[in-house]
């Protein structure tokens, strides 16, 4: 069935991006139990910086792949700088404060970042020049087959590569051991000779770098960027992290991909499922509406942004530790 395959491809692509962003949330949360509200904004800045670079170099005659690489090379340090600065200025002084305090600064920071971006890049959607021509590849032999584009393939490969790299970093290197130790018990880790502050900063840097790549990916996927794009993206990625079990790297990946798939299938099928004419077979009473407009659905694709939140609320209600999480978070 082609709709199914197409939505599977779209959902996987989107899910990979969510997963990469969710990794940023989950790493920071794992280490200092803080929801870094500003992470979505870091992703947005990554997308914006990349666009500036692509737009500036689009006519320069460089090969498209080189331009894309350069844009990544610009976005990653920019986001790392933002992530590092935010941690140092807004979170570090409040590490001993009650939990409400860093949450409020995090919101303040995300408002500041959004509006600085507005000042630099303007209020409107920015369209990216298509430097790499989109190519679609048919997945089946049928005439109206589901397709996968070269951009989607690139996003999936890049995301999987980054996730593998991150897991290798956390489980195979010295700094990874330090990160895991800090997340288990920061003060004891400090006693073992780990510089807890630099480990935390490092975590923010890695998260921001992942965010930058995610920003470039989502920007090239949709072909546009917007100063408020980080908000919804961040919320969905956070929902993904919670769904997978916050603090758990594998969980963030699983949650991201699930949220992407749910959104894609929701957008693809919910409209048909809740079509008033379909419903009329089971609940007579929609006949009048059906006659007026045969295509009207109760929950069409307009509602696709809602699914992630509904999942978030359901997970928190029934399984607050998430799919793969061990610790039940109930500390006030």
């Amino acid at each position, binding site marked *: 069935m082609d709709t199914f395959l197409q939505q599977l491809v779209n959902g996987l692509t989107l899910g990979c991006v969510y997963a990469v962003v969710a990794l940023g949330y989950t790493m920071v949360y794992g280490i200092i139990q*803080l*929801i870094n509200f500003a992470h979505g904004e870091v992703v947005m800045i990554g997308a914006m910086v990349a666009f500036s670079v692509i737009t500036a170099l689009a006519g320069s005659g460089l090969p498209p792949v080189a331009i894309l690489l350069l844009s990544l090379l610009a976005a990653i340090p920019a986001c790392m700088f933002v992530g590092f600065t935010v941690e140092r*200025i*807004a979170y570090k*002084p*409040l590490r*001993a*404060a*009650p*939990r*409400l*305090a*860093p*949450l*409020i*600064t995090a*919101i*303040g*920071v*995300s*408002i*500041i970042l*959004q*509006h*600085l971006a*507005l*000042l630099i890049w303007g209020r409107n959607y920015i369209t990216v020049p298509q430097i790499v021509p989109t190519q679609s590849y048919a997945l089946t032999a049928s005439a109206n087959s589901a397709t996968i584009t070269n951009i989607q393939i690139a996003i999936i490969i890049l995301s999987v590569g980054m996730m593998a790299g991150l897991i290798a970093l956390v489980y195979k290197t010295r700094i990874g051991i330090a990160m895991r130790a800090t997340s288990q018990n920061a*003060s004891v880790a400090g006693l073992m000779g780990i510089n807890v502050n630099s480990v935390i900063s490092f975590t923010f840097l890695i998260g921001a770098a992942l965010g930058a790549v995610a920003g470039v990916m989502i920007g090239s996927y949709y072909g546009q960027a917007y100063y408020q794009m980080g*908000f*919804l993206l961040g*919320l969905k990625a*956070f*929902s993904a992290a*919670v769904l997978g079990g916050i603090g758990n790297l594998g969980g963030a990946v699983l949650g991201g991909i699930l949220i992407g798939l749910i959104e894609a299938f929701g957008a693809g099928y919910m409209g048909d499922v809740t079509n*008033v004419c379909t419903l009329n077979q089971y609940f007579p009473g929609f006949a009048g*509406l059906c006659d*007026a*407009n045969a295509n*009207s*659905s*109760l929950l*069409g694709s*307009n*509602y696709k*942004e*809602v699914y*992630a*939140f*509904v999942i*978030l*609320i359901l997970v*928190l*209600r029934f399984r*607050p530790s998430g799919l793969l999480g061990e610790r039940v*978070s*109930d*500390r*006030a």
Partner: protein
Amino acid sequence: MTNLTTNYVDHILPPHVRKHPAVFWVGVVLIAVALAVMPFVLVANSMTAWVRITNFAILFVFLSLGLNIVVGFAGLLDLGYIAFYAVGAYVYALLASPHFGLHLPFWIILPIGAAVACLFGVILGAPTLKLRGDYLAIVTLGFGEIVRIFMNNLSEPINITNGPKGISTIDSIKLFGMDFGATTRIGDFAVAGLVKYYYLLMFMLIIVIILNLRLQNSRIGRAWEAIREDELAARAMGINTTSLKLLAFAMGASFGGLAGGVFAAIQGFISPESFTLTESVMILAMVVLGGMGNIWGVLLGALLLSFMPEFLRYTVEPAQKWLFGRAIIEAEVLRMLIFGFAMVAMMLFRPAGLLPSAVRKRELAPQQNDGE
């Protein structure tokens, strides 16, 4: 009334005023007269716009006092507070506009709006209030978005909210045979609708403030404070923490619903545009800036931040035009930047707010090894 002053106003008064209650009452009377005369002075000097601005500032005071119950009293971070305001506004708009052809009177709809908002608060709070605070924050954030998405899209296939176009020609408030939307003439003396709303809002503001003061020092208020300071200890003292948190949430929501109803009536037009995350953040900034948990502080914060954009519009934009020939930073953007910086700076340097409540100040001071 003397009791009221000694109990609730004392700590913000300088000592020499505290010793002489007469000075205090003279001050109160002077302020009351100034506030009562103000709209007429403004109208006479053709500054009617400022009456409107003041009315909306008072609405924001309602909202921040409502959010203060949730964030300040009970210590629960609600980032989707505007959703309750939206619910109240939409209930009013649907029941008193040509959209459905319903024109119920104001004093019937307002409690309905508050009750519906309260119901939404309970629906949202019940599953999430058992969890830790930052989850609640993000769930409320998502909830605010859900409500806005639904308002935007519930025009198809059954037109309930009229989608992004919003609902217009909402009935104005009519009380005791007087229409607050129209100008009343007493002899040669014209009282504009806006001015009447100003008095109505002032009257409601006094009631809301008294309610809040009473609430803060009640058994419930003290229980909230205990939960906020140490939930575990509060539970050990026999406080039913979950139901009290839910109560705070529901009360905050009903305040939001009330304010929303009044907003819809004054504005006469509502659309999902008015209920974005930006507004939620703005109200939170008001509460944080003024001093979480302190009613007078919140009042100050709300007034400061609601007049600020207007002030900026009349000063910063002309100044930029004069200096650079064009407005580089619009007042709107500057306002949001200031909100952001204010939230960060307040948390870093004066976490208890401009007018801190005594308990809150002690509590927000950094401690060693908190919560682990």
